[in-house]
């Protein structure tokens, strides 16, 4: 690991000042991704600004939403009573991610800011436009089994690895950000980017901006929800595909629906057209099949990952059936 200087400020202002002044500085919270990347030589910050002393751990119910501080641990959020009561989908998604040890370290802010696990990004000797713009995409014609089927560009076909983020986008969360220009709020849907011609930029944060927390608006998705993660082993692996499904069923009719996928794109992939195909329809397998067909329209795979298209369709069907069956 390269050397760096280390700071531990006690206010958010001092933290963003420390970062703004130094082009090669990084915030560190749980460290479960950044330290790994530093060991691999993928990232080599000259300064680490440890934000763990900032007061950003709180999980609290506010009028109209649930506020979760950026430093709340993945394990604490997944077990929190307010979260399981108001947004059980988020709890399920968090529990599907990583291992118990990593969830005890990883924070909500860090989870959304984690980098892709694309092998080409992670190996400095291989080409990668995200790590080294202009060096090419090794995955495009390489080993691309884990890669994107939606929203990719010929510069980058990496996927975002978070499970938590899939639930967040389905639940219409907002990201609260503080930076040199003050506070702003970014809809979760707009937080992560598609790769386009600038895959080196994962998200819409600007230099020196710090994620302070998220707010999830109150909603009706407290019972018929499911997070299905399909992976190479039963636990502790990144998703091949994952599905966050949330239904509000009244009688036999779907009053409202949310659907998002992970493991398929450079950002959490919300399926708005499929949601529209569910709303107002009876909660039957036929309805779910139609939604799954619509969801996978426009998907395009590569040599080794085209299996994700039928797998995605089946996973959506399965997730919706499981969500609908919950009592």
């Amino acid at each position, binding site marked *: *690991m*390269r*050397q*760096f*200087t*280390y700071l*531990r400020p006690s206010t958010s202002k001092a933290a963003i000042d420390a970062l703004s002044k130094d082009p090669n500085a990084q915030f*560190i919270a*749980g*460290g*479960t991704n950044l*330290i*790994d990347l*530093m*060991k*691999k030589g993928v990232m080599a910050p000259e300064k*680490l600004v*440890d934000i*763990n002393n900032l007061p950003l751990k709180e999980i609290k119910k506010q009028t109209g939403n649930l506020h979760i501080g950026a430093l709340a641990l993945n*394990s604490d959020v997944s077990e929190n009573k307010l979260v399981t009561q108001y947004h059980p989908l988020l709890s399920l998604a968090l529990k599907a991610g*990583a*291992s*118990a*040890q*990593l969830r*005890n*370290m990883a924070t909500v802010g860090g989870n959304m800011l984690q980098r892709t696990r694309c092998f080409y990004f992670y190996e400095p000797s291989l080409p990668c436009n995200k790590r080294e713009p202009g060096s090419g995409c090794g995955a495009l014609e390489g080993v691309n089994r884990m890669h994107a089927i939606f929203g990719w560009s010929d510069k980058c076909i990496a996927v975002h690895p978070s499970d938590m983020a899939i639930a967040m986008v389905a639940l219409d969360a907002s990201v609260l950000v503080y930076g040199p220009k003050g506070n702003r709020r970014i809809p979760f849907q707009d937080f992560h980017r598609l790769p386009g011609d600038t895959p080196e930029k994962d998200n819409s944060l600007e230099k020196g901006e710090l994620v302070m927390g998220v707010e999830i608006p109150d909603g009706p998705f407290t019972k018929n929800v499911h997070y299905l993660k399909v992976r190479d082993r*039963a*636990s*502790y692996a990144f998703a091949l595909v994952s599905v966050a499904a949330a239904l509000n069923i009244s009688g036999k009719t779907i009053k409202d629906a949310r659907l998002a996928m992970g493991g398929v794109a450079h950002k959490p992939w919300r399926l708005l057209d499929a949601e529209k195909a569910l709303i107002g329809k009876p909660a039957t397998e036929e309805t779910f099949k139609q939604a799954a067909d619509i969801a996978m329209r426009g998907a395009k795979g590569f040599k080794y990952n085209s299996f994700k298209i039928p797998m995605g369709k089946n996973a959506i069907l399965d997730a919706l059936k499981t969500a609908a069956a919950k009592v």
Partner: protein
Amino acid sequence: MQENENCKNIKASRRDFFKQSSLLAAIALTPSAVINAAQQEWDEKVASAIEEVSVQLDVNGIKHSLSIEPRVTLLDLLREQLHLTGTKKGCDHGQCGACTVHVNGNRINSCMTLAVMQEGKKITTIEGLAKGDKLHPMQEAFIKHDGFQCGYCTPGQIMSAVACIREGHADTEAEIREYMSGNICRCGAYPNIVDAIMEVKKGGKKV
């Protein structure tokens, strides 16, 4: 006795070899002034030429006041500076769980955190689990159920298993398997590990 002595010497020299080779690796990345210092007097001068930070840690009930480079992981601090080599380095990338320790009672991967980030925290390693000569119930259960073969992952498995019960995630075999998934055992002792945890859980002893 003679044999034990020899064994100890071999171990010590192997560790010294690794220390020196990692120093050589570090030299490749450091400024020339530091390299000069290093070439002449090895670690002492490298350490003084690189900015160190102070950190206070409570490890297994003993308070340590240390001066370390910020890039030292908690795992490397435990093994290389405090000589608590019960905590193992497997993958060093948070994927195997061999380095699992408790920080303020919660299990974490010590390879994926910087020691300096744990300022003021209470660390418990496998060495801190037994009470004197009396093994922890989980250690006894691992022996009874043969919950290991080569033993390399075992300290991490045991630290994780204790936390698994404390967290309330050991009610069924399926739940244990899910919540122990961060600890890999290449020998495949999983069924016996699950049996050991189930027995401790059912025994109802405080862990």
